[in-house]
């Protein structure tokens, strides 16, 4: 269990706590505080993955979000997750990881043959190859691409982890806890602002953890620790590590992804794994730092090649050497810091600098340490397949276009630095149009569109002194604008070594006759040659080049490749980078889990469940429920082994023969009060309402302004200025908004109040020839005769002491009553009715029987009120008043609405009187006509007519009025049925409506 690349004294890991983990089946040891990457590197493991397209061996390249290669399949707590960045995940006991894009193993990968066939895998390979013939797509191409493209494998197990959402408001959100973030958060907190400081990594401090600097005579890390502990003491400050602000949305809404559970060896059942924070901040300060970019050279993707800052981070934070024989390749001073860190630990690096002789403080320091520096040198190509073993180095000519002489230098790792790219993703997401800064050869934020400001390296400020000064200044200003306080600030003194300017050199030229692969984008395997081909083939816009080559489109969003890609396009096009422009940055900054996005809205918490007061009774009596919006409604009550259709026929027949009881609580109910209540109804409904007497109900249809039927229902006049409106279950909320719109916006002069009372009333419908007998026994003191309570009548009564409203209305076409009581008494009403109805053979019926009954009668419901029908189509023209105006009336005068050959509701029976007609079937005249067969109508609702004992359907049919008696075909391509049907009247039962009036 040796960790031969682990240093004895460096790093912030806890050497007292060993952690055993496994990688590709083999056990290794690391320490608490390691990432999976640092622990593997401590054990000398570099080869971790195969590249996306060519299956080339790949190793670690970065030390954090910059990592393009080390995406692993990780199993923790029995749960497997793909594409986990090994440089970001913290080592925890029992963690097991596997390489993903290789078969049978990362050491021997069959797909690597792609590497030798690479001339067949140029840019646009997928577009060019997998095109013809079309029939190959599903069977051959797609499965091949899926397998070959293999990122990880998503788990098929249920995710038992807990994910949460949180909403937070603050004055200042500071994203990133490097020197810029710490100084600005500290200054703002001192002004009393409510501050949230978010750090993506487990440790606060950013570059202060790795840079050899002092602040107020403390080391960078000690100063960071001091500031953080002071901030944590302040009640107005929230400090969060393991928390990445990944998205910037409208009105200064940002979303932060907090990782809470994964690094814990043991966590309580109620500790979430991850949490999403929706943070609305008055001001956002972006101190997200910068990411080192590579220099491009031959085989620059060989394992053992690192960003130089990553190599430094592995030493300083994790006490791990990425190699013992390093070559450092740079175009700027910052890689010299890495050289010094190696030297401090007894390792002698060789530095290759593309610049001519330099003499900055930092370079001088390195010279003083007797470290070999070769100026005007570049790496041409790296040698070694699964691990770098030497580099071919060339002395650059004056123009840096070719080499004067070359030599081979043996090494076991390469640390490369091509200067720094500010992390501008969040600024760009906020709407900030970036501008190009040619001092640093990178884009920086320009004018803010929202209340945001970038500070420090994120803004292109690369010296500590300036960063801290700006941090304090901006933090203080931004907060005092909000809190109106102005606490005096003392900017701490910092010490750092001066740097010389960087060299614009970003890509080693190919020696004549050589054809080395030089990668720009590691994760998507995009080489210099791919981009050259795309441009040769005529792609110009950077957005097109990006999509054609997939440059920067991998999950790392091109963090290390974007600028080099732009530089290359600019060079070929003989432009400068700002003319090429940049592609769009989109959230999330790094991948986040679906679980975190979904949060607690899963399973039964996905949406609220609405239950009627009688729900438990239905459940006890074997109801099978159906969802109606958020409501649960009994669909049928199962007896024995009954099927749905057997049960619903039994229930419907019982209504026609005796009496049935149905829970209608879910119908929308709206209380309408005020002196102008009748006037409102008169405008909203198509028929007349002003003269409706008190104690009477009326059926009404309401339209949208475009003449389409919106909803129907009965409304009852309880007293002169008080109405009780009912709506269909699903339209209840829309109808209320509709009424509120007209009352508040269009006709504010009407003195009316509307209020939803759906939840206040429990309702049951009592239907069938025996319903009056039951009602009479429920209300022994009430005269419920046909004379005293006629059809569409309304009375109030006492149901064994409970106040009740009784409406004589019918949806089933039978003699029927609806009883409403306050919700709390719903179950009492229901049970009492069942008890009293027993002698009359009462049975409960569900929505399926309810549908059967209304379809037979030709009553329209949801399937007919589908947002495409006008009153005429539904044979409701009798409800259109000619003597008044109403919402949507003017639209009914439109030419097409008046046409005599318009669609109209009809009844349909199968000619064989046996075959059920599937809902949604198309109605056609000729079943064998050439496709597309002209459709002249559709089947909206179907049932088994219990009255006539054969199938019956309602349909909407073109020229339906003149089609009665015709024979048509109902085709259902979904059910694969062809049924000959006869067109009949939509009123299949009780044409004259005698029963409801009996």
């Amino acid at each position, binding site marked *: 269990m040796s960790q031969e690349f682990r240093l004895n004294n460096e790093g912030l890991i806890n050497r007292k706590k060993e952690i055993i983990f496994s990688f590709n089946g083999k056990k290794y040891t690391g320490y608490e505080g390691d990432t999976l990457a640092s622990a593997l590197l401590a054990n000398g493991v570099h080869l971790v993955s195969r590249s996306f397209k060519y299956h080339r061996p790949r190793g670690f390249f970065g030390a954090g979000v910059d990592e393009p290669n080390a995406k692993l399949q990780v199993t923790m707590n029995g749960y497997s997750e793909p594409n986990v960045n090994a440089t970001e995940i913290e080592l925890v006991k029992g963690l097991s990881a596997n390489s993903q894009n290789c078969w049978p193993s990362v050491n021997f990968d069959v797909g690597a043959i792609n590497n030798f066939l690479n001339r067949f895998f140029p840019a646009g390979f997928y577009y060019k190859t997998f095109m013809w013939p079309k029939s190959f797509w599903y069977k051959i191409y797609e499965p091949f691409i899926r397998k070959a493209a293999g990122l990880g494998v998503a788990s098929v197990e249920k995710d038992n982890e807990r994910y949460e959402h949180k909403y937070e408001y603050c004055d200042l959100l500071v994203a990133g806890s490097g020197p810029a973030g710490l100084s600005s958060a500290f200054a703002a907190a001192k002004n009393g602002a409510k501050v949230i400081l978010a750090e993506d990594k487990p440790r606060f401090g950013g570059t202060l953890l790795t840079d050899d600097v002092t602040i107020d005579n403390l080391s960078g890390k000690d100063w960071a620790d001091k500031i953080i502990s002071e901030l944590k003491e302040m009640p107005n400050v929230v400090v969060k590590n393991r928390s990445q602000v990944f998205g910037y949305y409208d*009105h200064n809404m940002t979303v932060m992804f907090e990782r809470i559970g994964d690094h814990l060896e043991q966590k309580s059942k109620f500790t979430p794994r991850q949490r999403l924070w*929706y943070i609305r901040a008055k001001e956002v300060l972006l101190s997200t730092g910068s990411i080192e970019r590579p220099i491009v050279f031959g085989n620059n993707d060989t394992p053992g090649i690192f960003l130089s800052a990553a190599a430094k981070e592995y030493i300083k934070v994790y006490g791990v050497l990425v190699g013992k024989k390093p070559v450092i390749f740079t175009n700027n001073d910052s890689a010299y810091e890495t050289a010094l860190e190696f030297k401090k630990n007894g390792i002698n690096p060789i530095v290759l600098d593309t610049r001519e002789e330099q003499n900055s403080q930092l370079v001088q320091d390195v010279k003083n340490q007797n470290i070999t520096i070769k100026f005007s040198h570049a790496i041409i190509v790296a040698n070694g397949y699964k691990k770098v073993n030497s580099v071919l180095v060339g002395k650059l000519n004056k123009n840096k276009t070719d080499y004067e002489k070359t030599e081979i230098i043996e090494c076991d790792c390469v640390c490369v630095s091509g200067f720094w790219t500010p992390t501008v993703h969040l600024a760009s997401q906020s709407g900030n149009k970036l501008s190009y800064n040619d001092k640093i050869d990178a884009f920086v934020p320009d004018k803010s569109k929202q209340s945001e400001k970038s500070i420090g390296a994120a803004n292109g400020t690369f010296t500590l002194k300036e960063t801290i000064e700006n941090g304090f200044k901006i933090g203080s200003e931004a907060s005092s604008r909000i809190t109106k306080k102005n606490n005096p600030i003392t900017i701490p003194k910092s010490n750092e070594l001066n740097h010389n300017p960087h060299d614009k050199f970003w890509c080693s030229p190919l020696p004549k006759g050589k054809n080395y692969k030089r990668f720009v984008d590691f994760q998507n395997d995009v080489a210099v040659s791919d981009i050259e081909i795309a441009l040769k083939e005529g792609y110009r816009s950077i957005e097109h080049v990006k999509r054609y080559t997939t440059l920067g489109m991998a999950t790392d969003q091109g963090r290390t490749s974007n600028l080099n890609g732009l530089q290359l396009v600019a060079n070929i096009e003989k432009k400068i980078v700002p003319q090429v422009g940049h592609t769009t940055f989109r959230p999330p900054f790094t991948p986040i889990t679906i679980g975190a996005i979904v949060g607690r809205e899963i399973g039964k918490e996905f949406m609220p469940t609405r239950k009627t007061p009688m729900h438990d009774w239905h459940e006890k009596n074997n109801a099978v429920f159906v969802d109606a919006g958020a409501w649960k409604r009994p669909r049928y009550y199962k007896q024995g082994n009954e099927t749905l259709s057997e049960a619903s026929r039994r229930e419907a027949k019982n209504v026609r023969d005796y009496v049935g009881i149905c829970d209608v609580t879910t119908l929308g109910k709206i209380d309408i009060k005020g002196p102008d209540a009748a006037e409102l109804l008169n405008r909203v409904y198509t028929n007349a309402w002003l003269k409706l007497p008190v104690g009477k109900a009326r059926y009404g249809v309401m339209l949208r*302004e475009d003449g389409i039927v919106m909803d129907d229902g009965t409304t009852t006049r309880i007293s002169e200025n008080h109405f009780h409106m009912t709506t269909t279950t699903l339209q209840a909320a829309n109808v209320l908004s509709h009424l*509120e719109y007209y009352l508040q*916006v269009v006709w*504010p002069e009407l003195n009316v109040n509307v209020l939803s009372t759906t939840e206040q009333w429990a309702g049951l419908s009592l239907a069938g020839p025996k319903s009056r007998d039951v009602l009479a026994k429920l209300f022994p003191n009430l005269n419920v005769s046909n004379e005293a309570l006629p059809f569409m009548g309304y009375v109030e009564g006492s149901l064994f002491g409970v106040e009740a409203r009784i409406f004589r209305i019918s949806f089933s076409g039978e003699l029927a009553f609806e009883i409403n009581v306050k919700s709390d008494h719903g179950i009492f009403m229901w049970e009492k009715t069942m008890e009293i109805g027993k002698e009359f053979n009462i049975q409960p019926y569900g929505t399926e029987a309810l549908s059967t009954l209304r379809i037979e009668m030709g009553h329209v419901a949801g399937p007919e009120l589908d947002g495409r029908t006008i009153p005429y189509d539904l044979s409701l023209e009798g409800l259109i008043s000619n003597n*008044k*105006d109403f919402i949507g009336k*003017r639209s009914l005068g439109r030419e097409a609405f008046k046409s005599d050959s318009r669609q109209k509701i009809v009844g349909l029976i199968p000619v064989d009187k046996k075959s059920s007609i599937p809902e949604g079937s198309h109605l056609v005249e000729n079943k064998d006509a050439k496709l597309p067969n002209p459709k002249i109508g559709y089947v909206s609702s179907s049932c088994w007519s219990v009255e006539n004992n054969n199938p019956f359907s309602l349909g909407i049919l073109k020229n339906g009025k003149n089609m009665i008696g015709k024979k048509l075909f109902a085709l259902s391509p979904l059910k694969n049925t062809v049924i000959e049907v006869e067109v009949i009247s939509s009123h299949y039962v009780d044409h004259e409506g005698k029963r409801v009036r009996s």
Partner: protein
Amino acid sequence: MLNIKCPYCGDRAQKEFAYGGDGTVKRPELNKEVSNKEWDDFVYMRKSLRGKHIELWHHISGCRQWFRAQRDTATHEIFKTAKISEEI
């Protein structure tokens, strides 16, 4: 998610509101003869502006009041919100 100031309740998250479209449309008066064009303009024709737009919102998960907002359709900046009875 936008931050919308209901004139009755104050600042609230967008998810409490329903959008109501162009807030300058005037419904023709009841019982008044209107031409086909006038009616079509009212029912169907809406501008798809880039820039300042006066629109209706309904505080559906709050006070249930309709109100008007002046919003930039390109930047989502909301300049002002006002009760229906107020000028905007």
